[in-house]
Each structure stands twice: as structure tokens, then as C-alpha cells.
């Protein structure tokens, strides 16, 4: 990477004679350039779009879901997903509907079995009034995007307590993404302090920090932090556990970020403008914050995006084994606890749906991170 951040080189792929184009290019800010480069990457854009949809549906989970996710309905325990359709034996309509469904215990196998009656239509209506909830935690509402007037609608099925899996998955999306975001932010702050100190001061401080980081990195990550999670007192409230989990995720994530920040700072701290700032009497934190960080802010953003999937996967793994978030908090990992054994999945394969969300989210973050990384250095030929 060059330390020269001025667009002095003509863009190789553009014709210089096209003056309008060239002018636009020369006067563009760094982030505009990044955006133009990023726009060309189709897969990365799809990843970003998927993530935006996930974030929005998580944020407004109670609106997009027909229920609130905590209501238990005893007659619809372990109901298989009801797929909306337009036709049954009596013909087709424009209004989608789900067949009437009820779950009964099979007296021989003692399993819950879903009885579907395709002749009874449960018409789907949009913007229906249903269970009251608080949008974003503030605005009391009772309008849901869709719902049925009689009977039930569970497009992802229900869990063993008769709760709507679709709504719960959306709520879990909110929890998992938000815990990831907070985790990334805390990891970033930690990395900034530790990696910043190592990279800016160098010398023995750098040496000690490097050795300590190496030692932390040698212990297997998940088992190490499982130990911390196991230490959460049982009587902690779910919000206490939530914040403790963000700390653990931050601990999982900081070493990689710190190493990147250190490397960048080490390569930049000999630059003239840093020495000038130093001579002018600027404090280390000011030099790092005002002069050095902006020089590689785009890289930091990329690193944050790339470290996100690790947070999601760690949270899912820890909660899955019962050492992370606990019910009544709902996250992808907590939902997947119900699908821990083959027997459970055999009986109710739809309990595995949250895993698809994990995979899609991680994939989206990965392709988005790759796209951003390629776009992050717009002056690179």
C-alpha cells in the first residue's frame, strides 16, 4: 500500500480524454471512490442486501411475524410448517391461505403429529390486528403484516411449547445481529487500545503485548471462552447475561483486529506528517486518532465486517451448548438448542430452520467483506 493518499495517478481503466468522467473521478472523495468500486461487485451487493433485509426484519420482528413469539398454544405443539397456497380441491383464489392444521398426540407412538385438513381454508389477511406488542420497544401496536382470522398460521412451524418459530426466528435474528454489533464495537475499542499502544510505541511495549497475544491465541478459542461463560452466575438476569456475552465475543475477536491495527500503525508511524504532529506537541492519542486512524479507516471498516461472522458463529456455538445466552432470551443459538439431537430433528426437521439463517448471514457477511476489501483501496491500480 502506498502512503500517498492523493489521487494523482490517472485511473488506468478510464480514458483520460473523457473529461467529464475524469473530472468526476479526480474530485471524488475517498469514500465515493470506494463506493464506485464496490458497486461493481454484484455478489457483495447481494450480500449487503440480504443483511439489510435481515436487520430490518429483525428490528421489526413483531410486525413481520404474526405472533409475539412468547405465546404458547397447547393445541399447536410441534406443528409442521404451514405453507401458504392459492389452491385446494375446491379451486383457486387470489387470496393465499393455509390449510387448517391441528397437532394431536399419536396414541401409539406418543409423538405429536400434525393433522392437516386441506378442505378448511384459513385465509391470510394483511395488516391484521393481533397480539399487542411494542415496536422497537417503544410504540405500542397490534398490527401485524399478515395473519389469519381463525385458527393459526405458522409458516416455519412451532416448537415443543407451541410457539411460532417464524416470529421467534425473526426475534433471534435481532438478538444475534445486535449482540454481534456490540461485540464488534467492544472488540474494536479493545483492539484500538492494545494494538494502538503496541504499534505506536513499538519497542518493549510492543514486544510484551505481542507475546501475550500469542499466548492467548494458543489456547483453543471456544473452549477458553466457554470457561468464562460457565462462570456466569445462574441468578443473572437475561440482560446481564446478554452484556456479559458481548464482552466474551469481544474477547474472541480482538486479537485479529489488534494485530491489523498494530501492523498499520507500525508502517505509518515513521511518516513525515506524524513526526510533524509529534514536534508540534500533539499527544499520542491525538496523533493516533486524528492523523493515523483516518489514513486506514477503510481497512478498519473492512476488518470489522470480516470479524462479524466470527462473532455470530461464536455466539451460536456457545448458546447452542447452553453456555451462552439462555432462554427466555431468543437467539439463533438458543433456538438451535431444541435441535441438538438427531431425534429432535427427526421428529421436527423445521426446528433446524434457524441454522439456515446462521449460514446465510455468515455467507453474506463473508462476501460483503471480500467485496469491501477489494474496494477499500481505491487508489490501488
Amino acid at each position, binding site marked *: 500500500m502506498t502512503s500517498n493518499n492523493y489521487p494523482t495517478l490517472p485511473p488506468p481503466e478510464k480514458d483520460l480524454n473523457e473529461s467529464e468522467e475524469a473530472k468526476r473521478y479526480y474530485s471524488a472523495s475517498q469514500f465515493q471512490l470506494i463506493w464506485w468500486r464496490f458497486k461493481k461487485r454484484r455478489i457483495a451487493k447481494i450480500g449487503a442486501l440480504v443483511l439489510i433485509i435481515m436487520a430490518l426484519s429483525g428490528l421489526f420482528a413483531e410486525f413481520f411475524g404474526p405472533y409475539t413469539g412468547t405465546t404458547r398454544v397447547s393445541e399447536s405443539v410441534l406443528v409442521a410448517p404451514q405453507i401458504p397456497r392459492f389452491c385446494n380441491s375446491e379451486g383457486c383464489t387470489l387470496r393465499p391461505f393455509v390449510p387448517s392444521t391441528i397437532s394431536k398426540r399419536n396414541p401409539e407412538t406418543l409423538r405429536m403429529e400434525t393433522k392437516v385438513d386441506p378442505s378448511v381454508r384459513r385465509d391470510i389477511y394483511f395488516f391484521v390486528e393481533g397480539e399487542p406488542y411494542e415496536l422497537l420497544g417503544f410504540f405500542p401496536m397490534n398490527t401485524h403484516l399478515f395473519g389469519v382470522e381463525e385458527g393459526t398460521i405458522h409458516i416455519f412451524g412451532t416448537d415443543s411449547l407451541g410457539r411460532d418459530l417464524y416470529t421467534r426466528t425473526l426475534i433471534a435474528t435481532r438478538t444475534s445481529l445486535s449482540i454481534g454489533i456490540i461485540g464488534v464495537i467492544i472488540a474494536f475499542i479493545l483492539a484500538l487500545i492494545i494494538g494502538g499502544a503496541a504499534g505506536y510505541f513499538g519497542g518493549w511495549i510492543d514486544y510484551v503485548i505481542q507475546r*501475550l497475544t*500469542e*499466548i*492467548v*491465541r*494458543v*489456547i*483453543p*478459542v*471456544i*473452549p*477458553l471462552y*466457554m*470457561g*468464562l*461463560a*460457565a*462462570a456466569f*452466575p445462574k441468578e443473572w438476569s437475561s440482560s446481564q447475561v446478554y452484556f456479559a456475552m458481548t464482552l466474551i465475543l469481544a474477547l474472541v475477536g480482538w486479537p485479529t483486529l489488534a494485530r491489523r491495527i498494530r501492523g498499520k500503525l507500525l508502517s505509518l508511524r515513521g511518516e513525515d506528517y506524524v513526526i510533524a504532529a509529534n514536534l508540534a506537541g500533539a499527544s499520542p492519542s491525538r496523533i493516533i486518532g486524528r492523523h493515523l486512524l483516518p489514513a486506514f479507516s477503510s481497512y478498519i471498516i473492512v476488518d470489522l465486517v470480516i470479524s462479524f*461472522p466470527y462473532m455470530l*458463529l461464536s455466539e*451460536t*456455538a456457545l448458546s*447452542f*451448548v*447452553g*453456555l451462552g445466552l439462555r432462554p427466555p432470551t431468543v437467539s439463533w443459538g438458543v433456538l*438451535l438448542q431444541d*435441535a*441438538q*439431537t*438427531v431425534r429432535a*430433528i*427427526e421428529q421436527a*426437521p423445521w426446528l*433446524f430452520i434457524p*441454522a439456515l439463517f*446462521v*449460514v*446465510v448471514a*455468515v*455467507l453474506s457477511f*463473508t*462476501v460483503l467483506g471480500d467485496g469491501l476489501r477489494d474496494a477499500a483501496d481505491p487508489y490501488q491500480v
Partner: protein
Amino acid sequence: MVKFLIKRTLGMVVTMFFVSIMIFVIMELPPGDYAERWAFRKFSGTGAQITEADLDNIRANFGLDRPAPERYLTWIKDIVLHGDFGQAFAFQTSVNNVIGQKIWLTLAILFSTLIITYTISIPVGMYAAVRQNSVEDHALTIFSYLGFALPNFLLALVLLYIMTTYFGTSVGGLFSPEYADEPWSKGKVLDLLSHLIIPAIILAWSATAFQLQTVRATMLDELNTLSVTAARARGVAEWKLLIKYPARLAINPVISTMGFDANRIFSELPIVALVLGLPELGGLLLKSYLDLDMYVAGAILLILTFMIVFMNFLSDILLAFLDPRVKLIEG
């Protein structure tokens, strides 16, 4: 070479010292102390009344009344000098008894996973690099993305589900029921090997995806070097020159990350073990965390980390053999 070996061995000892301190801190973290949990385990359900004096007795018995640094020293001294890892209260026996032969099972899983990872990722990664931008190459890139996005324990569940629904076989555990409590014999070893394949493939999943990309990237760099062009100009057969120049160098980054692979595998092991019901250290670690049986947990963490540190040591030595420049740089 001797100097190099001594330096690496010393480094290993220093690392393990700091690691053991960190692990001791984690063992001390859970609220309440060992004596209370021990007493609760031992007397719960018996109706016996536990008084503060009883607890103090237990504390004195285990030496819990002494300050933490002193306890750390006794703990580590017993491990280093006598190989004694302390008491496992959930099992009412010594940690050594609980861990016992599970160490060998864990090593068996580690090595079979590593073997699968390398036998797949090295040749396939090289192939992808040679056929860059072909359909196979793109397919392998997609596989690598999936290897990261689909965590091993979810893959394990998917495989188990497919196996039980479509093939009607169970793949859990490491031994068939008839061998589980038998002494070691030839039949039992073969039985173990046949059961090892599934967990090893599952654990190798993400490591393979990762190493495949590493091999591919290094191979691509090496394919563009002048030595390859010169060999081609001399008329050396394509497969011969591939083996002679780029392939030799492309395995270096794989070897230098052997410890990292071991770390990744052990990181995923407890969760995969839970899903597959494997009787090895990872699953036991998880169980002891849930029981807050911290002496067992600490011992397992220490053993797993030691295996990783040792793999790092091995990979350093191997690398020094394969690429003598390493020794020169590090002196």
C-alpha cells in the same frame, strides 16, 4: 540446529507457564468455591446438614484456605512433578482417572482429522490453482465459503439427520456397543477406526476449506515465478516441474499453520462431541463446564493447549527441515 531446537523448547516451556496461569484464573472464576460445590455434590439428597465448620474442614482438606498464588504453585507442582491433576468432584475420583485414556482418543481424533485435511486440501488446492478460473476452481471456492459459513456442529447434525433418515444407521459414539467396555483388542481398534471417520470428516470440514484456499493462493504465486517459466522453456514435463518447484513451496504455509489447525479442531471439538456423543476430552470439557467441575476443565484445557503448543513446535521443526531459510532468519 541444536541451538534452534533448544530455543524452541524453551519457548514452549515459557508459553505453557503463562497458559497455565491463564487457565488457573479461569478455574477460579465461577462464583462460590470448590468446597461448597464439593459438599453440595457429596451430600445433596442425603439429608445431611452441612455447617460452616464442615465447609471449613473441606477447605482445609483441599488446601483452599491458602492464598491463590500458593494454590497455583501446588496445582502446577503436582502436575509437573507427579502428573497429578487434582480431584474431580462430580465423579468423586481423581482427574487422572476421569481423563485417563480419553487423551489417546482425542489424539486419535486430532491426527485422523489432520490427515484427512491435508490429504484433501493439498492436492485439491494445487489442482484448483493449476486450473485457475475453471468450473472446478469456482466450485471449490464456493465450497470454501460454505466450509466457513456452515459450522461443523451444524454439518454434524445435517449428516446425522441424512444418515438416520435415509440410511437408517446411527453414527454416534466412537465404539460399537459390543466393544464399548471391552479391553483393547485388535477388533476394538478396527471398530474405533471405522467410527473415527465420521467425526474426523466433520472436524476436517472447515480446516480443509481454509487450507485449500491457502494452498491455492501460494501455488498461484509460485506458478508465476521465473523458475517455472525457465523449466517450461527447458522442456521439462508439466507435472514434473509442478512437483519440483511450486508444489514444494506451496505446502510450507500449510505446515507452518499445523498448530493453528489443531487449535481450530480443538475449538470445535467440544460442540461436535456433544452432537455426535464422542467420549473424548472435548465432550468431557463441556460437561465439566456445565457441572462447574473446574479441576477437570482446567486439566483438559491444559492438555489440549499443550497438544497445540507441541504441534506448533513440530511444525517449526518440520519447516526448518523443508525450508532452511527459516533457521537463518530466526537464528
